């Protein structure tokens, strides 16, 4: 079975529309790219798109009600909502520093959830 995917390249602002032809899940042709980085990006997007997830979680006794977090490395795009929903039940106790690991190996994806903003402890 062959399928054609159209990928909008984000490597630079040109936004090339790159066509990736796949047969039985294997990439057999790439068309419409302007540079090697664009080709690489399109193949990655067509086979295993990855994203860094950013969100906020509650910070108990913090100087702000929430602390911002991200995945320590990109995770598969189709797991973004699942991870975000899982994080809806996660909270952390202040103080928090940038880089603190909040959840290790989130859903077994090999990425940690780390804080990206400090949260000072306030008496409550």
């Amino acid at each position, binding site marked *: 079975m062959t399928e054609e995917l159209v990928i909008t390249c984000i490597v630079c602002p040109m936004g090339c529309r790159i066509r990736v032809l796949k047969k039985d899940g294997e990439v057999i042709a790439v068309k419409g790219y302007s540079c090697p980085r664009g080709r690489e990006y399109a193949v990655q997007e067509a086979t295993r798109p990855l994203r*860094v997830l950013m969100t906020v979680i509650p910070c108990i006794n913090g100087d702000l009600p*929430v602390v911002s977090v991200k995945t320590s490395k990109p995770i598969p795009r189709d797991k973004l909502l699942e991870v975000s929903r899982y994080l809806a039940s996660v909270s952390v106790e202040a103080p928090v520093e*940038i880089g603190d690991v909040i959840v290790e190996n989130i859903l077994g994806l090999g990425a940690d959830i780390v804080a*990206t903003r400090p949260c000072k402890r306030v008496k409550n």
Partner: protein
Amino acid sequence: MIYDSVIIGGGPAGLAAAVKLAEKGYEPVIIESRDRLGGIPLQCIHPGFGLHLFREDLTGPEYIYRFIDRIEELGVKYVLEAYVEDIVNYSMISKKVRITSPKGVEVVEGKTLIYAAGARERTRYEIGLPGPNAAGIYTAGEAQTMMDMYGVMPGKRVLILGSGDVGLIMARRFVLEDAEVVGVVEILNYPSGLVRNIVQCLQDYGIPLYLQHTVKEIRARNGRVSEAVITRVDENFKPIPGSEFTVEIDALILAVGLRPRVKLLKKLGVRIDPRSHGPVVNDWLETMDAPGLFVAGNALMINDYADYASMQGYWAAESAIEYIENKGLPSTRWRRVVPGENTRLVVPQYLSGLRDAWLYLRVSTPLENARLVIPGLGREIPLIHALPSLQLRLMLRREEIQNAGEELVVEALER
């Protein structure tokens, strides 16, 4: 106490200026309106910061804490929750600023003033959006403050008007927080945000982007926005009859652009450039009308990257040091920079020829395979793909500016 510089605004530009001054042994003070330093990047939890300045991809808070941590290390003074009421006295050697803070009213004096108060978001009233005065209408930045600083959801079924980057980024945030985004509506025939954000904030989540559409009317129920009427527009932005459709919503997010915050500058008699909406400055980033007043960041012009705002902060600080050491900047024959064909804005507007200078500019229409031309300098730079939403930057050398005439036209020409 007379500070070397009073810095208005503790965001990317103001903090960078303060760090530079303090590192060189000068004493600045930062006046910040929020209850903490950092400005807008504090609430920008997505990456894309620091690529130019640190060659690293950081989130907004990670980026801005590089500066905040340095401010604390250097022991720079700052006043929080402070509102600048007025500039009460202005002379070559002294600038007195009256501020109100939780400590009361006080006058802060500096040898120079660095104005880095950022931008404000355009509102519903500036785009003439008809309908009742209802709850549930927010600017994208307000929604971002609510969600990503305070953990409060502005709505559960959202329409976004305007395709600026903050609007696109908030579209993704709403989906990740389990709200529904019914669409993003853009009046132009191209999005005003970056391609990356169109792909990663809209396409990834199947959010529709309605180009050449606008919101014609909003309706409210029980005091809260309940419906939006979307219509297609023609090339003159006039609604096309019969193309309307109605969506049910409980929040409308406006991402219709930013404007430099210039009220205080206007009060001082500083000229505002109708193209950049910021002050008219020279290549020290000093306003042409008030000596020793330097402007950086989004108060100067709307920047695509916080990195650029910080670079302008460094630039303004270096200029302030030169001003302090020489009790003013040298007088010179100014070359006026004039935006020519297809050029929306150019900053700075005046060049001295006494120093190298960065020129920041935007084109006024999408261009393919064009070239940026400065005939007065004999410069020609290829522009493979230029959009008004992409800020361009180029360095001009002192020597080439020196040889230029009174006016330097900058234009973008198609091949």
